[in-house]
């Protein structure tokens, strides 16, 4: 036996209204019992107190039109049919109390009548399976004033027909994922899992995220991508504020983070909002959070928990609502044990912890990342960069070898590609370029040699170094290395511009180098002093 069909319909104050002309008007709640290919065994009419008269007429008319339909009426205790909370509450109560028996009856939820709020609530309740049925959408006959019943459509939100919709969600999710992976296909299942999880958490929650993993594993990149994703989905409106806590040592740490008011200390000549307030409505990425002082930790905890804190010198709390992403390469548990990190703060930020694996444990990702980084470098250097087959084979072989430690992780990797792309003759990375790079990497790993960042930091100081774009880092580091190993500005210039030099009549290498260094506030003498200090 086919299951009996029950329709739930809200009486439409306007569409279902009665009167003398009612038979020449389309009345959705009545006409749904008139279709020649739909038998409604029972019709549950939900109505507002003011529509009592309409209900009586519907009952009488349905009895004549469709004697097989049993009509039952339910008064909805709703005063304002446009009040979402009230309507949802009343319909939810109805759904909870209704003795559904989906085994023997099928339910159709008529979403054509009632206020839009009522229709939306019916949809939501059906989608959430509080109403275990399909949606019934009815439409008037094409000709006005005709006494035909119009048409109807049954929409099953569970049905595979709506896979198309679902797959759009999946696609969007995929987009979110590859977004987080910066467009790089990752072949490492563990890393994939982490990214999926981050996406899942980041798009539904504004709770703090903690990213751990070795330096260069991509913590700051991931934090930026999470921010971009949330922004794209309009979940944040404020800015992304990034700060490396290692640079926040000392007196200024408090005011940098929490701001100060004018005159609160010597040198406080005007109000400073602080990074916490700047991050209002956005994302605050605190890298190297393990380096934060204990006082700042206490203030940060309050800022996360109650979204309020006290700027330096102020006796009035200010508020700021932001999502915190914390990064660390330290073991915070042992930092807690040694008293360097607050246990309560760790507990607060430890809710969602993601450990990013270093490049050495994601060797299968080296190849796809190689493609991505070459493409990326092409954009940076402004022309198309390619890598020939043999060069590629040689580099990948080296990269995947267990001896290659990739100590600086993706930072090393990205720097290597950028260097090769920059040095590639005619934009084509060949075996010679690769061999040079391999030597450079091997040396830097074996002698504990400095990474690009380390060299830049040593020369310029941490703060200035942090202000340099990634775009410039590799080139600058290489220039600095050459300078450090050269006797004079001209000597360094000759090495750095060896190729273009052959095509020029006049040699102005020293001048080009001087101008380049000046962009970073460096003079040859500073540089000599700095390298001397390093070697001292």
């Amino acid at each position: 036996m086919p299951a009996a069909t029950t329709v739930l319909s809200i009486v439409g104050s306007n569409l279902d209204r009665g009167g003398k002309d009612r038979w020449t008007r389309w009345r959705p709640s009545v006409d749904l019992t008139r279709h020649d290919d739909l038998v409604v065994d029972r019709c549950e009419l939900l109505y507002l107190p003011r529509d009592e008269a309409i209900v009586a007429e519907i009952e009488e008319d349905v009895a004549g039109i469709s004697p097989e339909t049993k009509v039952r009426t339910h008064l909805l205790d709703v005063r304002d049919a446009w009040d979402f909370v009230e309507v949802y509450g009343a319909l939810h109560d109805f759904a909870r109390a209704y003795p559904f028996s989906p085994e023997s009856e099928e339910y159709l939820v008529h979403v054509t009548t009632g206020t839009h709020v009522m229709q939306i609530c019916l949809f939501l309740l059906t989608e959430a399976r509080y109403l275990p049925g399909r949606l019934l959408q009815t439409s008037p006959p094409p000709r006005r004033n005709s006494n035909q019943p119009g048409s109807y459509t049954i929409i099953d939100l569970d049905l595979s027909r709506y896979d198309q919709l679902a797959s759009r969600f999946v696609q969007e999710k995929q987009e979110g994922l590859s977004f987080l992976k910066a467009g790089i296909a990752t072949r490492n299942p563990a890393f994939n899992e982490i990214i999926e999880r981050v996406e899942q958490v980041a798009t539904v929650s504004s709770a703090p995220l903690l990213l751990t993993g070795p330096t260069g594993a991509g913590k700051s990149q991931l934090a930026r991508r999470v921010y971009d994703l949330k922004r794209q989905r309009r979940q944040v409106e404020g800015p992304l504020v990034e700060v490396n806590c290692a640079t926040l040592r000392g007196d200024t740490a408090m005011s940098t983070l929490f701001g100060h008011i004018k005159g609160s200390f010597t040198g406080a000549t005007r109000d400073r909002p602080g990074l916490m307030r700047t991050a209002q409505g956005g994302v605050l990425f605190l890298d190297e959070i393990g380096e934060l002082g204990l006082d700042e930790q206490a203030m940060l905890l309050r800022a996360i928990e109650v979204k309020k804190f006290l700027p330096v010198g102020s006796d009035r709390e200010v508020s700021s609502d932001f999502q915190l992403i914390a990064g660390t390469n330290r073991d915070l548990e042992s930092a807690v044990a040694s008293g360097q990190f607050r246990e309560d703060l760790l507990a607060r930020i430890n809710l969602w912890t993601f450990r990013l694996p270093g490049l050495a444990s994601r060797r299968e990702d080296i190849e796809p990342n190689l493609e991505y980084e070459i493409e990326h470098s092409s954009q940076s250097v402004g022309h198309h960069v390619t890598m020939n087959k043999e060069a590629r084979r040689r580099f990948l072989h080296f990269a995947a070898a267990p001896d290659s430690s990739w100590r600086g992780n993706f930072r090393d990797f990205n720097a290597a590609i950028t260097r090769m792309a920059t040095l590639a003759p005619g934009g084509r990375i060949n075996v010679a370029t690769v061999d040079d790079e391999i030597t450079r990497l091997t040396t830097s790993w074996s002698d504990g040699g400095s990474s690009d960042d380390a060299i830049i930091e040593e020369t310029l100081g941490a703060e200035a170094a942090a202000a340099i774009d990634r775009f410039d880092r590799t080139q600058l580091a290489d220039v600095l290395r050459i300078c450090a190993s050269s006797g004079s500005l001209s000597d360094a210039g000759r090495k750095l511009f060896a190729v273009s030099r052959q095509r020029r009549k006049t040699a102005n290498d020293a001048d080009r180098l001087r101008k380049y260094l000046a962009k970073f506030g460096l003079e040859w003498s500073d540089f000599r002093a700095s390298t001397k200090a390093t070697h001292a």
Partner: protein
Amino acid sequence: MISIDGSRGEGGGQVLRTALAVSLATGRPFRIERIRAGRSKPGLLRQHLTAVQAAATISSGVVEGAALRSTELTFTPGEICPGSYRFSIGTAGSTGLVLQTVLLPLLLAPGASRLVLEGGTHNSNSPPFDFLAKTLLPLLRKMGASVTASLKRHGFYPAGGGRICVAIEPSRLSPLDLSVRGAVHTMRARALVSNLAPRIGQRELNRVAAKLDLASDAMEVCTVDAHGPGNVLMIEVESDSLTEVFSGFGEVQVRAEAVAGKVCSAVRTYLSADAPVGPHLADQLLLPMALGAGGSLRTLGLTPHTETNIDLIRELLPVDIRVQRCGRHDVRIDVSPI
């Protein structure tokens, strides 16, 4: 088991009703496949199910596939049980069509029956009650059937709510000969109006008066009490051998004069021809003749429905049906049991 192709010819519903009536009357089960194949909504619709359910009810029959949009159905009738039945039919199906399914089997059954049919009594696309009461039932009585019907309340599309009562006594059918019409001696026109302005009916009658030259005492506007609005114009043509009823239904956005004009054309075609049986009546008489003792008729023409019905009856029953075209509006049909 008899297998019927439900996609054949016109009138999927007609095929089903004929098959049900024959099955009930003969006690033989049948299977119908490809029901209404090729239509925009293939398979069984509500009005078809109503007929199936009525057939099952009077015979305690067993039905498989009786579901909306089902394209296959197997019907196994039990023994027909005469008695009192009440069938409530929505406006999608008319009382006349359900009666068409069960009337002959109940007539041929050994006991008396009382039927109450509720729903539409005057729907377009099915014979109105007046056709039943004034045309068909008198002819069946002529064949020996003991059947009367009375209208308790009118039911128009779409509001429905009408009611007719039918009294049936066990009968034996004898042959019927309707080859000669004889003189037309009376013509009457009636316009029924329910919950609408009576002048709609008057306008229809004015047009009838002009077209058919009817005197005012042969015409009447009747305001009837029905649940919803409705209007039907009916013209009765009484001749020596029968009364034919022609009807047209008032529709939204169709002028009353246009409704009347169509009915008048049908009447004039009938009057100008010689055959006694109108196109719709021919269709209705085939089964009584085939299930009874045969008969002959001359009709104005074969509708696609009638042609389909003739083919189907030939398949289902041991009868010989001969169709002979004698003129433009003159087709002779002879039904003789083999």
